[in-house]
């Protein structure tokens, strides 16, 4: 298929050319998604763990809601953040709209449920094993959270990577709250959409391949770190 060949060609040219515009777009993509994952993990991991530990009336509903929010459409998340940050909105005065900051906020909204829901499930399973021992040690639920997150870390790594994948891949949210402004809020996915709408399909695919290559690099680094740590544990 000539298009796919062209796409690989385009990707190669893009990488070899190391066009400064492309580098800027790539860097922004990475910054936004990594920031979103960092915030998402910082909130989502303890949140998911807490939900695994506490029993309370309505817990089932919360779990269902969280699972369902894994299906929050990026466009909807983007719209909600747009309305919040828009000049007429409640947080309008901060002038965050159409800035990378706004894109991070929208992506956090998207990946928080993914990280929290998958964390809940994994921590719940580990806690089934640890519960009696930790309770015997007199650990309050709150203090069990770091222990469980730490001991589940190899599994949670994949969860965080799923969140990162979601953030780096989505376009609906960043498009609306970022506005795809050239040089300011244009990221890889919005650039791909733009090229697609221009009919530049090989270039669009090529950009996609470049993005995937970058994401793969990051995944590879995470894998190496994980495997090294795991090997030390036998």
């Amino acid at each position, binding site marked *: 298929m000539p298009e796919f060949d062209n796409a690989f060609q385009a990707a190669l040219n893009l990488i070899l050319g190391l066009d400064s515009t492309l580098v800027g777009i790539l860097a922004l993509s990475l910054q936004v998604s990594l920031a979103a994952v960092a915030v998402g993990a910082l909130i989502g991991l303890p949140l998911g763990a807490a939900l695994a530990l506490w029993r309370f009336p309505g817990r089932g509903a919360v779990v269902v809601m969280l699972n369902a929010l894994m299906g929050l459409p990026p466009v909807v998340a983007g719209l909600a953040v*747009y309305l919040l940050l828009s*000049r007429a909105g409640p947080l309008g005065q901060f002038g965050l709209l159409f800035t990378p900051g706004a894109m991070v906020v929208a992506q956090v909204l998207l990946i928080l449920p993914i990280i929290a829901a998958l964390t809940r499930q994994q921590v719940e399973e580990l806690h089934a094993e640890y519960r009696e021992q930790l309770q015997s040690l007199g650990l309050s639920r709150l203090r069990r959270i770091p222990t469980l997150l730490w001991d589940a870390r190899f599994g949670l790594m994949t969860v965080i990577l799923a969140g990162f994948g979601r953030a780096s891949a989505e376009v609906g949210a960043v498009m*609306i709250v970022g506005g795809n*402004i050239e040089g*300011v809020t244009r990221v890889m996915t919005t650039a791909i959409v733009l090229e*697609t709408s221009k*009919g*530049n399909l090989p270039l669009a695919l090529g950009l996609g391949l470049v993005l995937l290559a970058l994401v793969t690099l990051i995944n590879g680094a995470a894998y190496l770190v994980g495997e090294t740590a795991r090997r030390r544990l036998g």
Partner: protein
Amino acid sequence: QSIGHITLASTTSTENSGLFGAIIPAFTEATGIEVRVVAVGTGQAFEIARRGDADSLLVHDTEGEARFVAEGHGSERADVMYNDFVIVGPVGDPAGIAEADDVNEVFARIGAAEAPFTSRGDDSGTHRAEQRLWEAAGVVTASPWYRELGSGMGATLNTAAAMDAYVFTDRATWVAFRNRQDLTLLFEGDEALFNQYGSVRISPDRHPHLKHDLAAQWHEWLLSEAGQRAIADFRVNGGQLFFPNSQPNVDDAP
């Protein structure tokens, strides 16, 4: 009663305005042919047609359409209708374009005031028209006041509304657009703002598998009296958005 369907590649501005929703039922009624509209960016519409994924094409980029036919992808092109571009901006009108005499002055004033302006920046028919006007006004656009969004018309309007920026848009999208916030129509009516839509038939030589018979009926219907009337009858809030201007028996490469 349906005898089949055709796929029509078109742009978001026509789709967003609601035109197709108004005229296609009449066509289907008359011919039993269903029309499936794929509304995308102008470039993407050409690309879809070029690849043989659509039976017909309706866009507003006369130059591009001509090239499409000249390159052999299209067999026939015809004017169908026109509307116009308008310039909208914040009610406060910081560059004072409402008082401008012609469109050149509009763009010159915005450039001089360095007032925020959002451009589609997506190489669409609208975007190209806008760029020609900047050039004509002798303004060199530059960030940060000039924002290239790389978005469709609707998305660009949403962004402009939130940024209180001027924006160059086709009238149809603007009239149908609901999230105006502080935006208002500030300038219209210059001849240079003319926006021609054309229907293009795909070359049967290039893509013999397409439904050329049905597509021909669509093309002819658009140019026919019935089609032209349907276009003229389409109103939003009482206002006419598209003005039929088919010239019977004028076709092929212009």
